[in-house]
């Protein structure tokens, strides 16, 4: 009863103070919610306070680059010690903030192109990494202990009220805005255009405080475009093994693919090789996947019934618009993506994840961390992990669970298929199989509590290389598991260190299967099996609807 007035409203009152400061400082440069681009730095000076948690929207694809650049122009004597939250750290500005002493602490998911510089800054002490997360994990923390005070997001268009259209590349925006707006934070959106009427409203104006029209459209990366011309015959062979030895074997209907050429080869073999095995309608029907251009031939062949996407892909807009039975689109016709929902879909509603990696150790732990680079995880760990909370059955999930539990006194349950697909040697003859992951050394250098492992060995069910498929579900004991991995590790030192007799025994028991054990004729492993052999082939398959970005137009 005697609580001081406002004890429970400090965040709201602080927010009101920030907005009042901005109103006073900006004057005519603020028209309702619309801020003049010339005054963006001034706005940030007024609404930010030292030590704030600031979420800067940088996704796999679209980037709030105008707002990110504005952050680097702040006066570090006024605004400093910011705690930056980024799902993807991909632009130089994202790190300039720390170099200039404006930011101090970082929590993130993926750093891709900036991984080397990030490692250097972390070592020099200019940047203190809280933790590396998966996307879903970072979003989750926005609602628990990392709620942003200010969020800087990107949208395609705004109307004069401040409603936002995020369109095909909605990506992370809903998760970020929801966490910020409903906890007395401030949302600032950069938009490509301000219009009178939006195609549809993706974020309502009540959740957005300021809108600024960026002088240039936001940066967007075509991250999921793979030119079929670069797919090798080894990748074709591995794709044949995947389709016959795993997709058909487990009747995998719902799945997620990684982004590499290995899985692009599988996508391009669905309408040819998989169709010839009579698998249409039986496998690969429902996807949690970005709109991969390499999936076009399979969609056109009627293999694919639905695709929900984390984000969009440049050039796929018109194709998606013309295929609303397959993709999730709004009443306006354009796609709506949502990274949080698609990650949840990939985790709980898919029976299989298959993707590539850089290093696999003898327990099957898989990591993309290499020395001197802090690359992060992105979404792979949520896709490539058994969903322990899953309860609904499916043929693939039940069969994997049965294999893992055969001969053991355990209550029946299913298991997700998690397949790591690698050539035994990467480029420059770097072995993909190692005794000890580089992740250990990286953890020591960067002072991490644990080595950054992308997919833990106990979640991996199959390892597929050009030499064969190792089914880890059927292994009993650590020794069998190690020999199964060595048995597909080819001529790497790990592979050469195999116990040949034990490997032959594993092969007799079907734990290791070679292409010939699967009835695969290697003579068919040629690029002729690809449903599209180059970018032009993809455009043709789409009936001219796919419009590849310039750098992929090589004809």
């Amino acid at each position, binding site marked *: 009863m005697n609580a001081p007035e406002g004890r429970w409203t400090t965040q709201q009152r602080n927010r009101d103070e920030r907005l009042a400061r901005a109103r006073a400082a900006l004057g005519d440069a603020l028209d309702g919610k619309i801020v003049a681009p010339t005054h963006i730095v001034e706005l940030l000076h007024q609404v930010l306070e030292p030590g704030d948690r600031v979420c800067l929207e940088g996704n796999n694809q679209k980037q709030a680059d105008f707002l990110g650049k504005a952050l680097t122009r702040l006066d570090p004597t006024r605004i400093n010690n910011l705690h930056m939250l980024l799902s993807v750290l991909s632009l130089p500005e994202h790190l300039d903030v720390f170099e200039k002493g404006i930011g101090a602490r970082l929590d993130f998911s993926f750093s891709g192109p900036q991984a080397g510089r990030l490692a250097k800054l972390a070592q020099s002490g200019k940047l203190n990494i809280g933790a590396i997360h998966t996307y879903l994990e970072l979003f989750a923390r926005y609602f628990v202990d990392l709620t942003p005070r200010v969020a800087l997001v990107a949208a395609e268009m705004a109307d004069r009220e401040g409603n936002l259209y995020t369109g095909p590349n909605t990506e992370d925006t809903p998760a970020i805005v929801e966490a910020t707006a409903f906890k007395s934070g401030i949302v600032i959106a950069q938009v490509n255009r301000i219009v009178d009427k939006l195609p549809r409203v993706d974020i309502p104006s009540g959740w957005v405080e300021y809108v600024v029209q960026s002088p240039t459209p936001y940066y967007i990366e075509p991250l999921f475009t793979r030119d079929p011309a670069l797919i090798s015959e080894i990748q074709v062979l591995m794709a044949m093994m995947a389709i016959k030895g795993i997709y058909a074997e487990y009747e995998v209907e719902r799945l997620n693919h990684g982004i590499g050429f290995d899985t692009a080869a599988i996508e391009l073999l669905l309408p040819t090789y998989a169709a010839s095995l009579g698998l249409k309608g039986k496998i690969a029907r429902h996807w949690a996947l970005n709109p991969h251009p390499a999936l076009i031939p399979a969609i056109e062949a009627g293999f694919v019934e639905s695709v929900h996407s984390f984000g969009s892909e440049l050039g796929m807009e018109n194709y998606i618009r013309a295929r609303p039975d397959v993709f999730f689109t709004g009443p306006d016709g354009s796609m709506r993506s949502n990274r949080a929902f698609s990650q949840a879909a990939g985790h709980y509603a898919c029976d299989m994840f298959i993707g590539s990696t850089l290093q696999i150790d003898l327990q099957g732990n898989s990591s993309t961390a290499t020395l001197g680079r802090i690359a992060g995880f992105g979404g792979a760990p949520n896709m490539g992990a058994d969903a322990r909370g899953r309860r609904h059955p499916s043929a693939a999930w039940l069969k994997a669970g049965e294999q893992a539990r055969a001969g053991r006194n355990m209550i029946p349950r299913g298991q997700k298929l998690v397949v790591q697909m690698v050539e035994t040697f990467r480029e420059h003859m770097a072995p993909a199989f190692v005794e000890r992951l580089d992740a250990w050394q990286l953890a020591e250098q960067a002072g991490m509590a644990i080595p950054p492992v992308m997919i833990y060995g106990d979640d991996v069910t199959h390892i597929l290389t050009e030499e064969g498929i190792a089914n880890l579900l059927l292994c009993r004991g650590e020794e069998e598991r190690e020999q199964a991995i060595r048995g597909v590790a080819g001529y790497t030192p790990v592979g050469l260190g195999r116990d040949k007799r034990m490997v032959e025994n594993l092969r007799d028991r079907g734990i290791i299967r070679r292409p010939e054990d699967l009835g695969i004729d290697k*003579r068919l492993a040629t690029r002729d099996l690809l449903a599209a052999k180059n970018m032009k082939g993809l455009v043709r398959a789409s009936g001219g609807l796919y419009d590849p970005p310039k750098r992929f137009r090589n004809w």
Partner: protein
Amino acid sequence: METLQFRFEQGSRPLAGMAQLVGVVGSGNLEVLIEPASLGGACEIEVRTAAVGFGATWQAVMTDFHERWGLADARICINDMGATPAVVSLRLDQAAETLTGGTP
């Protein structure tokens, strides 16, 4: 450039048909010429490779190839431009499948 010679005695599978060339000479790739030859039941393989210092790996790849196929009276010439063991094995298997009409 490095040239390596391998000879495996007492093969059991003779080749049928004409000399065959598979693969292409390009970065990360190789070409394999395979032909019947009177070698007293042996299989001879000559490797000319652009990547120096991988003799032990070649030895392992060739030994496994011979264990899989056991070719007799066969001469194989390889022009390698830094192919991985995976590509080498695939090309050799393709060549052997073509001239034996079978699988390992």
